[in-house]
């Protein structure tokens, strides 16, 4: 299958026009030493029918959440996505456009981003949001760099209870900046140890970064941490689960300076880890230090409302080596998914999804505890919790996967010492019946 329109005659005409005999003449300026004369080692081309068959069979060898009962989370969640989301994503006018460089013919994308920014600020209780980052982890890393830039301090305090993979990315992002230091804030009983934080906090602290709910699903004392940071130079960075914000306090209301997070749960499929989006929101005074693209409202020469990319001097195409970030393409279509999701769910729907996740997670938690499973931590939680297992958690996950249940995430993936920990996430999709069956099977294991 080829996607080229040229007839043999077109090609002859065009070459003749250039005074060329054949394609070889086009490559005259490529030195022979770097010309590739072989044939690329690639499989034979396929027709569309064969291609779809081939990839369908590959997809068929994966176990999809659609055909299982899933309790997996740890940063990617099986929340409900209304059909309307994908129908909008499939509008070619959206998905085959690029960055809205020409606002006159990109008002669709621009207004979507503006609406998305508005919804994210509503959700987080912040003043301004950008158009998206690559994912939750890179958003966190960019927040660390931004905090260092804003405060001109060198120490970044990161809660030990943050998603370990997100921490890995923060570490990688700061590797090149030898002058900077990442210090882990110790945890006590599965959440940030406030007195430990107090001890680490000093005049050289650029940021305190926490995750709410944290990696283990536990709720941090985020308001107390906010109090602690009130008159400190250090920025308070909160990585939040967007669905949780349907019932949990907006971080803007407890003192956060930057709120970000993994936006996947807002209308994006699991897709084996991507594409997702990182949402990123700040207080007004930091708007000009924010990474990434931003859309603003303005008027055209006839006085009509319109939207443009704005505050662009922060960005790489203008400020080059002094830019706030190198990001160029972002996750615009995923942000569109989030905007459509938040519109369809709306004020009540998001609250409902959050409430149901919370209630159902607590139901399952109690049932599992009732049959003898011990929770790893016992603080309040939102939709995710960890239980200790007698058998290696990995075995349990493997066994139940064969029966169409994805039991959770075996935490040895993150730390070999955690091989008897199973992390369980519950979304609004799960029914009591599914959970009862799961508990029954867990009772046998």
């Amino acid at each position, binding site marked *: 299958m080829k996607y080229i329109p040229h007839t043999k005659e077109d090609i002859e005409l065009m070459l003749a026009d250039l005074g060329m005999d054949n394609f070889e003449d086009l490559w005259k300026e490529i030195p022979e030493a770097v010309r*590739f004369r072989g044939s690329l080692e*690639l499989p034979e081309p396929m027709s569309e029918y064969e291609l779809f068959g081939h990839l369908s069979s590959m997809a068929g060898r994966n176990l999809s959440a659609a055909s299982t009962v899933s309790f997996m989370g740890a940063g990617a969640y099986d929340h409900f996505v209304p059909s309307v989301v994908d129908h909008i994503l499939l509008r070619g006018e959206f998905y085959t456009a*690029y960055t809205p460089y020409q606002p006159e013919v990109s008002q669709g994308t621009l207004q979507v981003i503006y609406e998305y920014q508005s919804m994210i600020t509503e959700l987080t209780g912040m003043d301004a949001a950008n158009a998206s980052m690559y994912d939750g982890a890179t958003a966190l890393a960019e927040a660390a760099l931004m905090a260092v830039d804003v405060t001109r301090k060198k120490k970044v305090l990161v809660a030990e209870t943050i998603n370990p993979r997100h921490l890995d990315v923060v570490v990688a992002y700061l590797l090149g900046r030898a002058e900077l230091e990442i210090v882990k804030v110790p945890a006590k009983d599965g959440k940030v140890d406030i007195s430990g934080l107090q001890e680490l906090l000093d005049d050289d602290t650029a940021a305190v970064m926490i995750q709410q709910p944290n990696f283990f699903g536990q709720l941090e004392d985020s308001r107390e941490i906010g109090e602690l940071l009130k008159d400190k130079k250090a920025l308070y960075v909160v990585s939040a689960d967007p669905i949780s914000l349907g019932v949990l306090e907006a971080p803007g209301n407890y003192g956060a300076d930057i709120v970000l997070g993994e936006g996947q749960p807002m209308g994006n*499929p699991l897709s084996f880890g991507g594409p997702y989006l990182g949402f990123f929101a700040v207080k007004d005074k930091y708007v000009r230090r924010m990474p990434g693209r931003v859309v603003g409202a303005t008027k055209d020469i006839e006085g009509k409302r319109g939207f443009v990319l704005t*505050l662009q001097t922060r960005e790489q195409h203008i400020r080059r080596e002094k830019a706030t970030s190198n990001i160029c393409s972002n996750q615009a279509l995923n942000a569109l998914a989030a905007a459509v999701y938040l519109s369809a769910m709306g004020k009540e729907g998001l609250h409902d999804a959050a409430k149901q996740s919370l209630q159902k997670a607590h139901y399952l938690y109690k049932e599992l505890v009732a049959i003898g499973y011990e929770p790893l931590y016992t603080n309040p939680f939102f939709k995710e919790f960890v239980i200790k297992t007698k058998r290696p958690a990995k075995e349990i996950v493997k066994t139940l996967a064969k029966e169409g249940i994805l039991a959770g995430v075996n935490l040895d993936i993150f730390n070999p010492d955690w091989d008897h920990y199973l992390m369980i996430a519950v979304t609004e999709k799960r029914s009591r*019946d599914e959970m009862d069956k799961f508990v029954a099977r867990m009772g046998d294991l």
Partner: protein
Amino acid sequence: MTAKKREKMIFEYSRAGRQGYSLPKLDVPEEALSSLVPEAMIRQEKANLPEVTEVDVVRHFTVLSQLNHSVDTGFYPLGSCTMKYNPKVNEDIARLAGFAGIHPYQPEETVQGALQLLYEMEQYLAAIGGMDRVTFQPAAGAHGEFTGIMLIRAYHEAKGEKRTKFIVPDSAHGTNPATAAMCGYESVEVKSDGRGGVDIEDLKRVLDEDVAGLMLTNPNTLGLFDEQIHEIAELIHGVGGLLYYDGANANAILGISRPGDMGFDVVHFNLHKTFGTPHGGGGPGSGPVGVKKELVPYLPVPLVDFDGERYFFNYNLPESIGKVHSFYGNFSVVTKAYAYIRALGAEGLRQVSELAVLNANYVMEHLKEDYDLPYDRICMHEFVLSGRRQKKENGVRTLDMAKRLLDFGIHPPTVYFPLIVEEALMIEPTETESKETLDWFISVMKQIAKEAQENPDILKEAPHNTPVRRLDEASAARQPDLRWMPMRADQVE
């Protein structure tokens, strides 16, 4: 474009009590919120999201979509972005439940199809780039640059070397110097020579043992193949530095020349440009990074390996730079690019480059009388014109000509980039455009050149028939209005 030229904000459709969703009912005993969540953490006021019906959502976003120009609706010769046609079957493939519905932490035996896809795709990209291994974690080109430069940093540090500078040509894309800085390097600029390539003398001037490497796009941002690439590579390698290939322009060289053979040690590909995956209104892209053997130990974890029977994640890279993405990158974008490569094969990919380059040269040939062509050479998949003649003689800027193109339903080329060309217009037709489309574009460009002389005001006032006219970007930046606030009367029309 469309009859309806504007659309209210989704918030303006909101009425308390309207609902656009339905969820399963809560079928477990409900407990008081205050017994589950500490009072201090309970949200007091629900987020002020719209309350609208499903119909409202569909109409609103459909109408908004119609305010966009896109590849599906028209010609989009946006230089450096490779706005080629995005095959529809790839969208269906990425949406198969077995791809879209898998969780990144599922047991490996339940995702063998996905792992196989990544494994095979790695081999395809390695073959195309002349590289040894590839990581898919980078989510876009700039993210690939970051990853690649950090790999080079790790390589030097493993040898106990603390190098401080990265060389970037003056024709480079903004992400290149921004990346170098993000990675802790001083970005050192080298000039371009009279033929648009790296100025070898200027390169020699900045070369020393502090140089960690050079970032280069080849063909470069002028659309020209740097013929001295071998010499450049030798010079950089001579001081112990490495070469990074910014693959934004790889659409010109598929099966024609391989970065690995040019002397590059690290490359990124933009799957959203070269391999036909859609640009999504600004993303998601995918920026896989390929490396030569020496750099494999530093790649982000995990890699995907095959033991003869099963595919598995390999986390065993003790010298790895760690991770640059939560999971494995933009997987579903990779599935689309995989499908693209499987549809075309080696022969098909070579034709892509042949015709992308033919199209660009054809358009260049027909426009070089009407506009200044600063580098009159065979171009690759794109070329750069200058509007300096029109500016000087007619007081018309490149921006005005770009805006005029909008009146014809054509997306303008990339303008004012690369920075080394005054009033630049960077034109990339791509291979999926027919001779008829190119001829029409040429005629429109000729008409605009004529209008510049005869009726410059029509350009200065353009566009005339787009959903909005020119927008006041200065006010937008002075008094940023970045969110809808229902209480702000000036936002309501």
